[in-house]
């Protein structure tokens, strides 16, 4: 008997020829799973389970009962398919007994006594996977060894023993949630599955390979060998390790994203130049540590990153570094081009309707560190403005200008810029 079927769900083949629905006693066999493959999606709570079993059919009509008590299987998704002897087997009907919401019975017609491999597939919820990344930065923070992991968590209510696991990277569309179709979350009992975890681990002698392949808009990661993940457990496996990934550090000011002050961002790209780019990186948490002398670590920072396409960029926020500072000072303000609406000849018979302000700013960036740094300062201005600066500034969008420069160790720089803002009737194209 299949180990798990004793407590969760079962496939039973009635050896009595149909019709026998009214019979009070039945003799059944419990064919075990030969293989099981899990295809787990991370964008929605969905797993496609495809299992194969070898069944013996008698000539005539055979009844095959499939039940899934205490699991999160979508009853509308259960499919039967003969992998061998398909020309001799035919599903005549599928019935859902009134007394059970967690069972179906196929009536299968066989042309002769045959033994066939069949596939039963269905959707379940409760199996999820996620990605984690750990970057070990060199002491100079210029490169790192990046290790990617995938974690599979099983809260499906079922134990899939020795399953081949495939993980889908991508975003699919579902019109209904699987766990709603399954009847919602059910109360489940706990098991001590530790022994099974240990046994499963011992059976796998070496590190697993995870093969990545593209499929339409998705990527499929196939974990080498098979895995057993008992209900309630998570398992983390190494997906890849890449040494020597170049990392650049940019001290960034962008008040809308990172708040006041400069934020230290460690940046790398998922591309060939960065020794990555073989496949997209699924969404997950990136944690960075810096290696110190003697294999000691120092925590740098972490970020929850969305899906990183090939050639896209990852920025890890390492927080503020008080040794690189910026100060923006408004040195001068002048109002000019005052325009009045007049309704009489007296001085008081007028009202201001347009004006232009000219503001002089000083931006000072200081690097108190003993190494060269790069900064990127994004300044956002409102209204109809002209911008003129002593240093080169790039236009990020219609209201954002960016200063990006290198700054030597222990040095500072000052950038002057003039902001001319037209208001009221002075606004162009109003």
């Amino acid at each position, binding site marked *: 008997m299949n180990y798990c079927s004793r407590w969760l769900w079962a496939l039973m083949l009635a050896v009595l020829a149909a019709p026998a629905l009214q019979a009070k006693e039945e003799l059944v066999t419990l064919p075990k799973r030969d293989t099981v493959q899990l295809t787990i999606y991370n964008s929605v709570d969905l797993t496609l389970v495809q299992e194969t079993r070898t069944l013996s059919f008698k000539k005539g009509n055979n009844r095959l009962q499939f039940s899934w008590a205490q699991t999160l299987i979508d009853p509308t998704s259960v499919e039967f398919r003969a992998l061998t002897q398909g020309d001799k087997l035919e599903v005549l009907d599928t019935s859902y007994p009134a007394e059970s919401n967690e069972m179906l019975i196929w009536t299968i017609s066989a042309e002769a006594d045959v033994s066939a491999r069949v596939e039963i597939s269905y959707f379940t919820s409760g199996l999820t996977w996620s990605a984690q990344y750990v970057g070990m930065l060199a002491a100079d923070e210029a490169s790192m060894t990046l290790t990617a992991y995938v974690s599979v968590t099983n809260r499906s209510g079922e134990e899939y023993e020795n399953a081949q696991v495939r993980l889908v990277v991508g975003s699919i569309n579902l019109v209904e949630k699987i766990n709603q179709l399954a009847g919602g979350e059910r109360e489940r009992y706990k098991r001590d599955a530790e022994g099974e975890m*240990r046994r499963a681990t011992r059976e796998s002698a070496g590190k697993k390979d995870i093969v990545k392949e593209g499929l339409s808009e998705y990527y499929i990661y196939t974990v080498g060998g098979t895995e057993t993940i008992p209900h309630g457990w998570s398992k983390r496996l190494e997906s890849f390790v890449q040494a020597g990934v170049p990392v650049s550090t940019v001290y960034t000011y962008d008040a809308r994203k990172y708040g006041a002050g400069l934020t230290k961002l460690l940046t790398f790209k998922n591309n060939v130049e960065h020794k990555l780019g073989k496949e997209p990186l699924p969404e997950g948490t990136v944690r960075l*540590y810096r290696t110190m002398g003697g294999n*000691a670590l120092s*925590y740098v920072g972490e970020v929850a990153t969305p899906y990183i396409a090939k050639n896209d960029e990852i920025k890890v926020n390492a927080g503020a570094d008080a040794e690189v500072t910026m100060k923006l000072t408004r040195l001068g303000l002048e109002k000019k081009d005052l325009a009045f609406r007049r309704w009489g000849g007296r001085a008081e018979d007028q009202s201001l309707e347009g*004006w232009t302000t000219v503001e002089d700013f000083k931006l000072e960036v*200081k690097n108190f560190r003993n190494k060269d740094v790069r900064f990127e300062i994004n300044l956002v201005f409102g209204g109809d403005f002209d911008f003129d600066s002593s240093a080169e500034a790039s236009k990020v969008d219609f209201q954002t200008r960016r200063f990006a420069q290198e700054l030597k160790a222990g040095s500072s720089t000052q950038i002057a810029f003039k902001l001319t803002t037209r208001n009221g009737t002075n606004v162009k194209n109003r």
Partner: protein
Amino acid sequence: MKLRLFAAALPTALACAIIGLSSPTPAEARIKLATLPDREAVAVRFDHPNQVLVEEERTIALQAGVNNIDFSWAGTNIDKGSIVFRPAAADSKVEILSTSYPPGENALTWAVSSPDARSEKFRISYLMGNIQRETSYQAMVSKDETTCSFKHYFKIRNWSGESFAEADFITRDGKKFEKALSQGEAKRVLVNKWDNVKIKKEYVYDLTRQYEGKVLTDYVLVNSKDIGLGQIPLEFGKVRIYQDDGKGTAAFTGEDWGRFTPIGDEMRLNIGTAQDIKVEFKKMVNDVTNRRGNVYDTDELDQYEIKNFKDSEVILTLVLRVDGEWEMMKDASGFESFERMDNETVKFRVKCPPKGAPVLLKFHYQRKDVW
């Protein structure tokens, strides 16, 4: 045959590693044999401004093949996602195969593959919450208020749930001190001491720092080698200031928060109010000019009468604010120097004669295009 050693053997040590030596057991088994490798070295690092990283080393006896190592941390605040487990030797032949997380427990199991039976040293690193840190300083100022001895203290309070029998605590600037620190215990350690640090004393009337018209007394020290500092950035922390009274004893003269001061930057510490210097403000002129409908200019004269009742002359710094577009008039008077710090802020230095002789700062300015 073990016995759930985990609970029995570890009444207070809350994070531990157990290596399972049992053969495969069925799911129902509640019995397992485990060894409990001791921690050999523990480092608690404070180099991140908000996080505390704990690193520990343990030597674990491995069998050839796949070994399971359990790590659990009931009652402590370890960030599960931050745990990094690796052989201490860079060229180790041992491989970490997978990490498994049981349901509802602060625990995990590493599957580790070893080519042979061996003892391997592992390093485990993780972020731990509820270890508080605090930097503080003590300045002992000389009687003539030109130098001080400057002591830098680091205080740790351990609410993590874990006790450290022997650990290296490492500050942001790499200072290491070895201490035992029990759960709930706090320790304060002198990590740096600098003597003959030069300080400057300043009297400041600053409307950006206070509105009551008081004169503040500040000490200013620059974190540079020129004055005896400049070795490390000074962390944010409270500075308690004492002064040598010349009789072998010291008096507490005030305290202030010292902001994070990188090398080369200055730390300004307010020790209190200078009661012997009085500043009286009067607005002498406040006229509207050049009115155009709802728009006008102003002509304003702000007068500050300063009296220094001390026996010696002092320099008073006045930091004043005027909003909008304005310019100072040429007949402004009564100051040694001035600096327009930004559009709204101007700083005057006024020489104040001793014994209460008044001096007048006349700040004459015009605002333009007010509405």
